[in-house]
């Protein structure tokens, strides 16, 4: 081949080779990766505008709204259009840190998507921004529905709150997106699946500057699906009264429920917090205050606080012993002389009771009688009955946070104290002091065995359409009858006299929990009426002294109010 032809052939190869490369890469982009690039081009031009679905409302048992929605202003920024000055101005008006804004703007990958930088903004702040909006490119204001708790602190622990989803949660919960609210603690968390709606989507065509050109006809908008409403068993008015009865005490909890079906009327714990504050996003100081270990306002005492249950344990020991046939109602131990010596220790009673039978020992809450009964029963029989009525296990209430407490059974004792644990431990346990721990909700549930005519322990619940069920306890009818008589006697003539309500036969049991850190905790669990009780109330007042003098009258008042409300509403 001559040189000229060689040169010609070479150039020809170069020429066609170059275009072959072009065609190859076109083929790659358009055919092999065409779908991907088509999707990218659609993502470029189509902005998804979410239509926020309102969260379902929450009602009390009488149909009053205890959580609803209200409109709130928000401020958002389109990163691609905003300038430094505007960010500074907005930060100054909203009184937030510039870095906080910039951090939020960085999370969104598409610079033309507007990012909410502050929510639940005050009307005044919005007015200032609106006034200057012409000078603030990329800044937008809008209105969105947000959660509202009209009775703020009153139901805070029951309802929980909603707040913006965290980055970590976003990674785990695929169905959520940046800026969504999610239920935290309480009913909001428990029933997130029911309450949360599904946001709708409007498809808007935008140009490269993010300017909205209108809806895209080929994409059908998706309407939002509002969340479902939730009807609770809660009695708002009764809860409000309960809060008033407890107003003088800084730390307390109260449960009122129907012992026949488990519906909870009152679920109250104090101190509390304003759940509305979370919608806006908390400042660091607010968050620190909520987590302050001394006040712990976020701490829900109904299901999370574990206390020894004091003398409220005594009816269970009595029930256990009677049922096992180990004693009869008339059984007397050594008389109470104000205490009992065990080895070189002396276990006190709170009073000199003399010789009592079982019923009177409950009525007058004689510790010496129960020291001896406990010793007589033995650790295994005691812990058996405690487990049977639900201590040391979660209650199964439809509520997300619950502690299990502790029943110090033999194995636990041996682990804790070695082989050398003594009868002294049984003495303490027999009067509900020492190692045993239970939550107020466990205590309330355990007492339904006395209040429930089916001889069941009934699990409390908050959702009106849910039944958490009950558990039949195989105990002799006679044994239960005897203890019920005793509980009625407690209020009629014993330590719980202050729980008396005119016109109703209240039964119950006082408890005083020794507190090494300060004043004793005051407990009372009571129910009424004696036959077919409609309401069971458990009140724990921290650092308030004797159960008979503080908790008992409060329980009485709650029961009285319950009947007043029911009488009024049924006559309406």
């Amino acid at each position: 081949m001559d040189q000229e032809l060689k040169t010609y052939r070479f150039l020809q190869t170069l020429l066609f080779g170059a275009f072959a490369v072009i065609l190859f890469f076109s083929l790659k982009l358009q055919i092999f990766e065409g779908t991907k690039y088509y999707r990218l081009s659609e993502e470029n031009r189509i902005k998804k505008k979410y239509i926020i679905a309102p969260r379902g409302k929450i009602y009390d048992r009488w149909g009053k709204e205890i959580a609803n929605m209200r409109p709130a202003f928000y401020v958002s920024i389109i990163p691609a259009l905003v300038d430094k000055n505007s960010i500074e101005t907005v930060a100054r008006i909203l009184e937030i840190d510039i870095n906080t804004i910039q951090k939020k703007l960085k999370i969104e990958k598409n610079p033309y998507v507007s990012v909410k930088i502050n929510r639940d903004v005050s009307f005044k702040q919005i007015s200032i921004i609106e006034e200057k909006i012409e000078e603030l490119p990329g800044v937008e204001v809008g209105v969105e529905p947000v959660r509202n708790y009209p009775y703020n602190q009153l139901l805070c622990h029951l309802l929980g709150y909603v707040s913006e989803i965290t980055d970590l949660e976003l990674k785990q919960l695929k169905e959520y997106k940046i800026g969504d609210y999610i239920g935290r603690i309480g009913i909001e968390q428990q029933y997130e699946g029911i309450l949360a709606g599904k946001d709708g989507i409007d498809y808007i065509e935008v140009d490269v500057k993010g300017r909205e050109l209108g809806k895209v006809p080929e994409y059908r908008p998706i309407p939002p699906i509002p969340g479902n409403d939730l009807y609770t068993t809660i009695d708002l008015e009764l809860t409000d009264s309960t809060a008033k009865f407890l107003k003088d005490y800084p730390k307390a909890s109260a449960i009122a429920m129907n012992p026949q079906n488990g519906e909870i009327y009152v679920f109250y714990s104090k101190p509390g917090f304003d759940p509305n504050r979370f919608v806006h996003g908390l400042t660091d100081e607010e968050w620190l205050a909520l987590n302050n270990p001394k006040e712990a306002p976020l701490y829900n005492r109904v299901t999370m606080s574990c206390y020894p249950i004091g003398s409220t344990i005594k009816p269970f020991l009595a029930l256990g012993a009677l049922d096992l046939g180990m004693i009869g109602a008339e059984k007397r131990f050594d008389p109470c002389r104000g205490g009992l010596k065990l080895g070189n220790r002396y276990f006190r009673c709170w009073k000199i009771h003399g010789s009592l039978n079982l019923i009177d020992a409950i009525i007058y809450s004689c510790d010496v009688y129960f020291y001896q009964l406990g010793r007589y029963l033995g650790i295994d029989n005691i812990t058996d009955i405690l487990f049977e009525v639900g201590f040391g296990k979660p209650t199964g209430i439809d509520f997300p946070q619950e502690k299990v407490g502790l029943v110090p059974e033999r194995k636990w004792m041996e682990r804790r104290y070695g082989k050398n644990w003594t009868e002294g431990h049984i003495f303490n346990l027999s009067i509900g002091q020492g190692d045993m721990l239970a939550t107020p909700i466990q205590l309330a549930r355990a007492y339904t065995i006395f209040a429930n005519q089916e001889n069941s322990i009934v699990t409390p619940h908050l959702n009106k359409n849910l039944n958490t069920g009950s558990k039949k306890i195989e105990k002799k009818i006679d044994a239960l009858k005897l203890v019920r008589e005793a509980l009625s006697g407690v209020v009629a003539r014993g330590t719980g006299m202050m729980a008396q309500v005119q016109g109703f036969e209240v039964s119950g049991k006082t408890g005083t929990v020794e507190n090494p850190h300060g004043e004793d905790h005051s407990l009372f669990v009571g129910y009424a009426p004696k036959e077919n009780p409609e309401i069971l109330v458990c009140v724990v007042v921290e650092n308030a002294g004797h159960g008979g003098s503080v908790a008992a009258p409060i329980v009485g008042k709650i029961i009285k109010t319950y009947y007043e409300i029911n009488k009024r509403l049924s006559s309406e």
Partner: protein
Amino acid sequence: MNRKDYSILIISTIISLLGLAMIFSTGGLSYFTRQALWLGVAVLICLMISRFSSRFWQTFALPIYIFTCILTLIVLVYASSYPRRWFNIGFFSLQPSEFAKIGTILFLATYLSERKKIDKFTDFFIPIIIIAIPSFLIFVEPDLGAAQIFFPIMCIMLFWAGMPFEKILIFFSPIISAITSFSIYTWLGFMIIFGIFVYSRKKLTEILYHLIANPIAGLITPIIWHSLKSYQQKRIIAFLSPWIDPQGISWQSIQSKIAIGSGRLFGKGFLSGTQKKLEFLPERHTDFIFSCIGEEFGLIGILITVLLYIFLFYKLLRIARETKNKFLSLVVIGIMSWLWYQAFINMGMTLGILPITGVPLPFISYGGSALLSCFIGIGIVLSIIHNKY
């Protein structure tokens, strides 16, 4: 060769009409009208030029070269706005760099055709000086895209004039040395492998050249790199790693790929490109018009465009081969390599396989000067076909 062969004019006009349609789609009626006028003028001038005697080019090669270089110099001094690329003459503007390409090709062809044999190392120097003058003037405008085009034109013309390919490769190896010097290992690898290649040719001058020029090029590149404008650096970085900053420097490349890729096989349809319509596609009617063809007409559109170009270049190459006059043959090769290189670079850039340099797509991109200069090129080739001597 047929004395009445107008096929290259016809094919060029077809490509231009395709371009016109795309300009209507990307720029709207006002751009379309202006470009249509330019096209009319360009075809007329092309036909006029085709009547010239081919001897004219040889006679006036140097004056044309000097004239276009002076024009380029004047625009540098008198241009009213930055970058200093355009003369504003009433309602239209002229870009002398487009015409400097023609002047340079003509003069380079004159020089190369006057040499008996082009195969020595020293034969590089004069051609380099010839292209360096317009290239430098355009570089300081600044227009890096247009400045670099002279170089491949010269290489192909040298090759056509008889310079062996290996020599060109060795002579320009300092450029490869410079590129590879961004990584010391790549550079060492290049120095060794290329050294073995040069050594096997057993030519002392070549070995010495390799041992001196390549290390120097490799060492001064960092200095040159730092002297580049930051946007120029960014463009190179963006090319090397396009997803490094998708909102910033790589935006154009990514949006162009999205436009082409989303066209798939049949395209989104004429006037229906969303990347184009919503302005995601940058420089839609000029540098990135090919992306718009890809978006609206899909692979079919790209295939047709490429086939039209292939046909045009195939014809030009044939003409160059069949033209027995060395000068005229070199002119045709010069014009072909210019158009071919711009087409390739532009398409490669829009496809994301080459760095983004502002090179228009011949006959298709919006721009009067570019269109006119292309048709002048075609006119020169026609005059060569029609007026053999």
